């Protein structure tokens, strides 16, 4: 039994290639069913997200032709995808699944969605009977490792995009964004994205102001927001808890005196300025006033970078956790290879024991139940003691190069390959 993986991801293939291999959710069962019909494939699942398409299988001894599966199922020529494919087997495949589930192989390291996506792909394959013992063991362990990584490192605790940093900071100021008002001044794409992020995190109301009234109204319609005249933005700004600016104005729209007026109008309640405009729409002096917090695009970027560096450090810790877990898991899997031999050996000895008891019982005459159980206990004890060393040796040699030789020797010595022992 071997783990085998083939796939493309955001590092190995451009979007154009990933798109050709992407499997829509509705088509996933069909892709899995085709996969497990491939010669050599015993178990399989297909993971398809916007950043990766991967085929995860457990095969019998000979490696399966997974490239052939991709060619035939997706109808793509080998030349198109071959340079972008990666393949992993055995230990490397285990490590890859652990890294993917723990979000170490993600475009944004530590993002939490990938674990849910892996679980979804696993549950589709499982419901089709395409996952049995080997992949079940691998995936269950991968989920446990992902949980361990998340609990023992701070890999997912900080924001790394400008929009999520804006939300993180807003939450540092206001606690919850529930019921907070966002004022969007200008119509820059990044400011719009940040506004969407704030709204999705609970911000209640949105006001939009733009020099071009029509543009403001279109945007307001998309957000279900109100509009305010650009000329009176200093008056209307007092309603806002978060002010997002992204106009092309050459001079700052908010200066110290505007900030002072704003504070008076809000009775000193804090205001968070997110200034994404270049040149800046909010003068840096405003940040010096109590309860006004100004973050320009460089500040947001610098918080995002410092969070990224923090994540990178945490990712290194996560890699060490994964290395230990890969070792543990592969040892466990290897020892599973010895299980049939161990079971045969135990069965062989048990048959001899039973036969010998039956043979001698006639000569013993009538024996009490206590004597009967004493004989049982004694013979079992002898068998267990005799088998202890061979079984321990089989288990401990599981990961060693001589494992197959030892296994074969035991089978030969006890004649385990040729059926029942002679009585």
């Amino acid at each position, binding site marked *: 039994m071997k783990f085998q993986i083939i796939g493309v991801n955001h590092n190995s293939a451009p979007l154009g290639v990933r798109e050709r291999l992407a499997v829509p959710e509705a088509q996933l069962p069909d892709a899995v069913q085709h996969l497990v019909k491939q010669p050599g494939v015993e178990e399989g699942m297909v993971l398809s997200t916007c950043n990766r398409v991967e085929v995860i299988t457990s095969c019998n001894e000979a490696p399966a032709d997974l490239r052939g599966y991709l060619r035939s199922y997706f109808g793509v020529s080998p030349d198109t995808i071959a340079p972008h494919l990666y393949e992993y087997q055995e230990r490397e495949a285990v490590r890859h699944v652990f890294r993917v589930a723990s979000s170490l192989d993600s475009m944004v390291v530590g993002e939490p969605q990938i674990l849910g996506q892996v679980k979804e792909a696993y549950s589709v394959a499982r419901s089709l009977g395409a996952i049995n013992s080997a992949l079940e063991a691998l995936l269950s362990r991968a989920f446990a490792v992902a949980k361990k990584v998340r609990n023992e490192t701070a890999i997912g605790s*900080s924001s790394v995009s400008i929009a999520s940093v804006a939300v993180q*900071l807003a*939450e*540092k*100021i*206001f*606690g919850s964004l529930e019921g907070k008002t966002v004022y969007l001044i200008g119509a820059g794409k990044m400011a719009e994205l940040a506004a969407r992020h704030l709204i999705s995190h609970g911000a209640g109301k949105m006001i939009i102001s733009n020099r071009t009234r029509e543009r403001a109204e279109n945007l307001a319609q998309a957000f279900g927001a109100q509009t305010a005249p650009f000329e009176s933005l200093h008056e209307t700004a007092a309603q806002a808890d978060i002010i997002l600016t992204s106009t092309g104005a050459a001079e700052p729209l908010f200066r110290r005196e505007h900030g002072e007026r704003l504070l008076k109008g*809000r*009775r*000193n*309640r*804090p205001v968070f300025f997110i200034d994404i405009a270049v040149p800046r729409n909010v003068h840096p002096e405003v*940040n*010096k006033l*109590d*309860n006004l*917090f100004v*973050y320009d695009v460089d*500040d947001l970027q*610098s*918080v995002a970078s*410092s*969070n990224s560096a*923090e994540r990178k450090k945490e990712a290194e810790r996560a890699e060490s956790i994964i290395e230990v877990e890969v070792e543990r898991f592969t040892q466990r899997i290897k020892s599973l290879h010895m299980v049939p031999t161990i079971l045969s050996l135990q069965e062989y000895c048990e048959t001899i024991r039973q036969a010998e008891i039956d043979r001698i019982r006639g000569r013993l005459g009538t024996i009490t139940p206590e004597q009967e159980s004493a004989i049982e206990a004694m013979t079992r004890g002898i068998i267990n003691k005799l088998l202890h060393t061979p079984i321990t040796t089989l288990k401990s040699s599981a990961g060693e190069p001589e494992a197959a030789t030892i296994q074969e020797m035991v089978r030969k010595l006890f004649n385990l390959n040729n059926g029942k022992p002679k009585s």
Partner: protein
Amino acid sequence: MPLFWLRVALSLYAVGLVYALASFWGGRHVLTRITLPAVGLGMTFHFVALLENAMLSGVWAPASLHELESMMAFLLMVFFFVIYARYGATSPGIAVFPLVFLLTVSAASGNSPSESAMPLLVSQQWIYVHVGLILVGYAGLIFSFIASILYLIQERNLKSKNSTGIWTRLPALAVIDDIGYKCLLWGFPFMTLGLISGAIVAEARVGPHYFLDAKILISIVMWVLYMVLLYTRWSAGWRGRRAAYLATFAFATAILAWAANSLSHTHRFIAP
């Protein structure tokens, strides 16, 4: 025996002290899990000590400075846990735990109560009411002061755009602000009623001259500052630096009022 329980409580409060000190080298999160159960248990033993002390002496209000410190420490812990239950914030512990520890150290160094330690003046129901109310008022003022300091630290963090370091785990600014305001709001009526009840007792015992006593004058100044704090917050929404300065001033006056027993002729304990 009350002293024994108090010393058990003290040893558990020591965990809180370590937690507060650990905050300065960034190890706070490691201790969070053990600190809260430890200080919670400490508070329970502290309650047992107070109860047993009151039952033994037959006096249900603090009768000495040590008992007053013990009661104050206990009330601070109660405030801490009420805030923790409401906001999930452990950060006030950084300031509260050392204070509670110091108060309990002082309280635990005293003698067990006996009949002879009974104060001369503490003999009326009004005194119990006065002491209880005043102590709750003090606890509110202390927490409000701590919150205003934490507010300043968090504000500075946000203004300096510093996203790393030991203080980044503080609660959101709005949460700290709310803690400070609610403590003021709840503490003020207690302080006011405490002073009124004290005035009634003093009037009955000393006559109208009680008003000129140093401790009473300082207490009135403290009450006025308390009211100004609340008023500026309520009318102008004072937060941050100005509110912190005012809170510091009010807190300093409160300390002065607390310590002014030796200057007072009308407000004294017999025990040390």
